[in-house]
């Protein structure tokens, strides 16, 4: 006949899984209890390495000063993270000043300097309930890169020279296609009307260049693979289509009001240390030497007395 122990085992298994489900279900809920001392800061980042580093820098510095940080890494592109901000899913994230003006608010590039761009960005954000903390010394602009061999072949120095490339294929993050700082701008400012756009949804533009799938790709000017000895060349942007792009944390005014001034001071102290060389060094550590953003941020903060 059916063994007794099998029946018992089945019952036991069922009871156990039910219990486990209940227990796990209970603990799976995110911790609702907020410290009565101060509200938590929900800090988000965009979806690339430099943002992960910035996020970790601010997160760890704030936590060291006793703030409670809820960290939402890798939310997505500007469009998505701005939505997260305005729908109050996050309170704060590091953004590039030019991107605020041109992508978030869709304005054409008008500011002629980094400072003017920052001022304009701040003004625009403040109208809708957010503010900008102090900007970083470094700027990370979009840029278009080509292989040095391609540059030699078609004599490419500026973006306008891309007209010389027959059947031009350009790879970039998907949002590049519709942006004023992106394809739309290239068409308007440099007359590049015949470009085949190859969207990258999780792949590196350098990969696309290396595998000869495209002749040009949109990259960032603080990428550690760039530099005098790299095999890639950045094309000049005389019209400053890509604007000025220092980083400034966008923060909800409400959050600022509900936290002591130490909040702003801590963040600003971190930002002040982020020079071009510093960020490129950190990018190199993460992207080339494959350290984690968390450990790189920690090392940097410690070395600069911010932790």
């Amino acid at each position, binding site marked *: 006949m059916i063994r007794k122990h099998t029946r018992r085992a089945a019952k036991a298994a069922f009871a156990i899984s039910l219990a486990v489900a209940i227990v796990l279900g209970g603990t799976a809920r995110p911790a609702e209890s907020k410290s009565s001392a101060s509200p938590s800061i929900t800090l988000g980042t965009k979806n690339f390495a430099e943002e992960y580093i910035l996020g970790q820098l601010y997160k760890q510095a704030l936590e060291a000063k006793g703030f409670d940080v809820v960290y939402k890494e890798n*939310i*997505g*592109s500007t*469009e*998505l993270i701005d*939505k997260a901000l305005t*729908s109050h899913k996050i309170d704060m994230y590091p953004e590039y000043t030019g991107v605020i003006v041109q992508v978030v608010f869709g304005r054409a590039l008008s500011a002629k300097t980094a400072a003017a761009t920052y001022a304009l960005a701040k003004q625009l954000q403040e109208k809708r309930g957010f503010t900008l903390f102090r900007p970083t010394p470094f700027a990370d602009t979009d840029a278009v890169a080509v292989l040095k061999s391609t540059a030699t072949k078609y004599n490419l120095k500026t973006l306008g020279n891309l007209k010389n490339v027959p059947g031009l294929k350009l790879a970039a993050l998907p949002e590049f296609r519709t942006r004023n700082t992106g394809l739309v701008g290239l068409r308007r400012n440099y007359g590049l009307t015949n470009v085949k756009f190859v*969207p990258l*949804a999780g792949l590196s533009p350098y990969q696309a260049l290396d*595998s000869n799938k495209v002749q040009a790709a949109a990259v960032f000017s603080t990428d550690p693979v760039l530099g005098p000895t790299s095999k890639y060349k950045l094309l000049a942007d005389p019209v400053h289509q890509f604007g000025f792009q220092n980083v400034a944390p966008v923060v909800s005014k409400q959050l600022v009001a509900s936290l002591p001034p130490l909040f702003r001071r801590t963040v600003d102290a971190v930002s002040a240390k982020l020079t071009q060389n510093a960020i490129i060094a950190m990018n190199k550590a993460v992207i080339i030497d494959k350290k984690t953003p968390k450990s790189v941020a920690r090392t940097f903060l410690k070395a600069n007395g911010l932790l």
Partner: protein
Amino acid sequence: MIVGDTFRPGIFVDALAFIADNPAFLAGKALEQLVLAGAALGLALLVALPFGIVLGHLHRGSGIAIGASIFARALPSLAAIAFLLPVLGIGFLNNAIALAILAAGPLLTNAFEGVEGVDRDAVDAARGMGMSAGQILRRVELPLAVPLLMTGIRVAAVTVVATAPIAAIAGGGGLGDVIVNQASYRLKGVLGASLCVMALSAAVFLCLVALQNALTPKGLVRTRVVGDLPPGKELQ
């Protein structure tokens, strides 16, 4: 990647509107996906099917056959694509091979089980009639194995079609391009493209069921295989 649009019941209507507004675009993406899936399936058929049939005919290697199925299920599609990425770069080939590996599992297993499980009496009778091994395979084992073979092909095909969206992260194209790009196409686009993927999977499933019915020799009872999952991806 996330965020964003709020979830109202109207999102379904918006999604349908998205489909209605972009028929050519979505059809093009769907075609891309079918081509990729077709290539992957073709590759897998070329390799896994003969292998499974031969093993089944020889009544050898059942471990391999079962193992193939388990391994294919255990291999995350993301991992398959990521493994081949450094080797083959982005684009069609990388994704086709990755998906082919996924499809090979059910194909191999079912080909094996189908041929191996053919009624011994029938095989013996054929041998008694003086048929060679090759003739037995062609005239007895294969026709009788059709139900399981077709089930394997069907599971593999639907798996590949429904898993293809993930290929978008490695330049594979298809409807996945929309699904990973909520920034440009918004949530309604994501939902719209997903509905298209679901419709595509269902269509492939139905076509292959019809094909199976057409190919099954009359008078053969269709065996149901436990593990013949509901139409959809077997793994993602």
